[in-house]
């Protein structure tokens, strides 16, 4: 293969001088990632796989002029420095000329002093990722060697540094960096039954974070071990309607999808849309949600100073006491719908409630606390969600008992089951990254939420 490396400046130059191109956005990302996959061997931690990854990508969004000035073409393409620049550019422009969008323009270049500075990097991880990997491996090894009733099965540890450069044809250049760390641990518990057969089950805990201090490795391992031990003392749920406690991870999953209904793009395309001034949860009677999208949180998974379209990102109140206070309008769709662009990125920040965890568990005669769903599927358009119950606790206020539950499924709806919502007063920060290339989802808010009248089948 001929090595035809070209530079970013050469790419920008070619984009600027091309007669068909009216604008462009370049996102260059360099990722360095370390991964280890562990399993137990002779009661020790063994490394099954040990990986080191270096990847660089240049993603370009090109806007081209069409015959009709009210329309434009566009293509998103990954450019590869090992391939000739001109042929990649020409094939992109040729394809873009056959696409069709309503025309829009990038924003004016913001003054550099207006762009806020945000902390999204674990400095020690960024400085020496290999050393950070060794330190965390050592901590995991200690967790594995801790005396427990359970058996350590496996764990994974991923650490990554993402360095990004955003370049817009309006002159904007912005650099940012983010660290990401992922850990999972799986423990199993076995007991011999009277007939001699072995009954066993396991529990796996996973967590993401931007800074290692926000990833409590030891607590995660203790949690998966403890829950594995309880996984054999389970019964199936009785079918019926329940008050259900969900944790922050579930809240993040449900709300990040549902909040997409606030995007102006949804209104433009005829998708389900909740407009400013509407009730977020129809006929809500419980704790009324107050939600802000905050892109400035230190070590937030969704923290960013500026959007990919060049709009400075600031905290934006989107829901106040259950009323939608702002839709999410990016530059493109704001142009289409004659709306002022707003911030569109940020961590989901939810105002805390007033109840303690204990009070939530006693809120109804029986409260089902979900410890883990098997596979939570949520529809962002309808707000419905469902999953098998991997592990839960049934709190019975009258009998003062807590029973572990496994199996059966839960079927819910944000619009219906969030009406009587109660939020915990304790808060946590959470992060989630679904793929290497995407921005993360961040959360700061109640550790638990109670939803009502949820259908459970056993």
């Amino acid at each position: 293969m001929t090595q035809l490396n070209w530079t970013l400046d050469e790419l920008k130059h070619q984009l600027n001088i091309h007669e068909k191109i009216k604008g462009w956005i370049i996102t260059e990302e360099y990722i360095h990632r370390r991964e280890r996959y562990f399993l137990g061997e002779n009661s020790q931690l063994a490394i099954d796989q040990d990986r080191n990854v270096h990847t660089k990508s240049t993603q370009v969004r090109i806007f081209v002029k069409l015959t009709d000035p009210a329309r434009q073409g566009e293509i998103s393409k990954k450019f590869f420095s090992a391939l000739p620049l001109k042929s990649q550019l020409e094939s992109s422009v040729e394809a873009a000329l056959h696409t069709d969008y309503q025309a829009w323009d990038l924003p004016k270049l913001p003054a550099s002093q207006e762009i806020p500075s945000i902390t999204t990097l674990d400095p020690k991880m960024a400085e020496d990722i290999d050393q950070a990997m060794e330190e965390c491996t050592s901590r995991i090894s200690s967790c594995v060697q801790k005396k427990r009733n359970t058996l350590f099965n496996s764990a994974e540890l991923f650490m990554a540094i993402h360095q990004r450069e955003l370049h817009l044809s309006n002159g904007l250049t912005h650099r940012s960096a983010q660290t990401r760390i992922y850990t999972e641990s799986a423990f199993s518990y076995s007991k011999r039954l009277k007939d001699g057969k072995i009954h066993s089950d396991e529990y796996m805990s996973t967590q993401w974070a931007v800074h290692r201090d926000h990833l409590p490795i030891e607590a995660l391992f203790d949690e998966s071990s403890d829950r594995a031990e309880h996984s054999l003392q389970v019964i199936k749920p009785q079918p019926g309607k329940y008050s259900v406690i969900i944790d922050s991870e579930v809240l993040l999953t449900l709300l990040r999808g549902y909040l997409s209904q606030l995007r102006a793009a949804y209104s433009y395309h005829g998708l389900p849309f909740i407009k400013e001034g509407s009730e977020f949860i129809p006929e809500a009677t419980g704790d009324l949600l107050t939600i802000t999208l905050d892109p400035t949180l230190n070590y937030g998974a969704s923290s960013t100073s500026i959007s990919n379209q060049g709009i400075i990102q600031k905290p934006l109140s989107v829901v106040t006491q259950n009323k939608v206070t702002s839709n999410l309008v990016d530059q493109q769709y704001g142009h289409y719908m004659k709306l002022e662009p707003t911030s569109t990125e940020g961590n989901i920040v939810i105002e805390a409630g007033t109840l303690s965890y204990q009070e939530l568990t006693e809120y109804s005669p029986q409260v089902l606390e979900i410890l883990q769903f098997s596979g939570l599927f949520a529809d962002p358009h309808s707000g419905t969600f469902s999953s098998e119950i991997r592990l839960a606790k049934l709190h019975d206020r009258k009998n003062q008992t807590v029973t572990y539950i496994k199996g059966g499924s839960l079927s819910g709806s944000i619009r219906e089951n969030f009406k009587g919502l109660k939020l915990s007063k304790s808060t946590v920060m959470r992060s989630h990254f679904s793929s290497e290339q995407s921005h993360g989802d961040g959360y700061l808010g109640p550790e638990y939420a109670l939803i009502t009248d949820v259908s459970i089948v056993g």
Partner: protein
Amino acid sequence: MGMNMTSQNKIMRAPFSEELTALRKQLSEFIPLLESEPHWYGSIYFERKRSRVYSSNQKQNQATDQLNMGLVLRIYDGHTLFEEATDDLDLHHLKSFISAFIQRVKASAPPQGVSPRTYRVPNWKEKLSLKLDPEIRSQIPESVSPGTEVHFGIRYEQDPLRLSTEGHFLRLAEIISQIKEKAKQVGLAQEALSFINVRQSIAVEDSFFLDRETNISQTLYRVALTLMTMCGAERTFLRVGGLGGMETVHLTDPELTQLLSDLKALTQAERLVPGKYRVIFGPVVTGVLAHEAFGHSQEGDTCARGRSKAWELHHEGARVGNEHATIFNNPAIFQNAGATYAAWGSYFFDEEGWLAQEQVLLDQGKLLAPMTNLTSAIRLNIPRTANGKRESWSSGVYTRQTNTYFSAGDKTLDELMELLGDGYLATQPAGGMEDPKGMGIQVGISYLYEVRNGKLTGKVLKGPAGGDIQMTGYTPDVLNAIIAKSKIDVNTDTPDQSRFPYNDVGGCGKYHKEFVFAGCGGPYILLDPVILG
């Protein structure tokens, strides 16, 4: 329908990309460096995935063009598989990269008190002694040796790379037009059809694998067409595709009519009361059941991690299903049911260079040996299978499913419906999840068709909260609840012509991440009871 092999029709195969030839030669020279210690097994995996996606809705025609390319250097030292992955293909940089990689491996301390598990690299004679599909065997030269560059090209009829961008958008516009026309025919008002999206994706996937005995490459054409229609928050999907040319994305009139009839029915759908029911699963939902059952529990790395009950049950010889419960995993489906193109999860070799083969995972309720990747096969001391896959070159390799399906039965669909009597028909999947140690199972269903006296009533039901329906339960209970299965050719009385049931376009996440393509399918199956809620 079978392959037309007349002299007028030449078999066309995706060629190896010439611009990768020099890189392949250069990289093969690095293998001895990766085996510079006597007990090391060195290999290199390279992949290049180029894809174009064309998408049209009522307001926009969109296009994306992606290229993802990189290589993975691998050293297995008897304890750990070390990998170094990069997309920097500059030769000078690669030499430094390899040098640093070797130093990293040398500096790693082996575990205390554990004997190394050395890997013996099979030669071509041993590989060819396995049962291989003719599509694979026919592309291996007779006098193959370690230095022979062997290429496998996916077969196609209608070149997917020929149609221009303009041609693609014209085709998508025609489909949108057909959808609007069909909507009227089924009684769905145009203004009620709030969103239509049609998406065509075409990918060219080149890869090669090198070790001291093997120098193999493959080129796959991956083509899919997805339609989505919405009425408010109600939504229906149709997805067709496979490995081959544009012949993989042929839409039929009945399919479009069904898409829109279902959408209309969903706007008036009742909600299912949770409970135990008698149900027929359609091929794709059957495939999801196979995938989530044994399936994930039969992935060798899950077994090696101590996280699968299936491994224990296999050794006990325990039965986990009845005589209908036979599940295959097979990356070598080069004719998908009656179609002439390959199934979505197929390939010629996995990403660790193992040639594709059909494998029985569950045989009439009895578990056989699991699927493997390299390290799990070594740890479990069982034969290798072609299941080492990654989300991309930059991700780690795990044991992953390819095409997973139930074996066919002997009933026509009409016979199954008659057996069903009163119950439901589930043909639209909505995800699923495994529980490899606890043996729970979750199969998602978008909506159900009501059946009374063996006939569809026209009514459609959604889940108790208005969303998806989940089938859950204890996997052995579900596999013991299979009453009957259909043939592959469901509408004929005659014996099946096709070797394999249809495997649909799909994907799979592992441990809640690591997404790969996977096919899933099977016959229609009748189960009673299943828990739906």
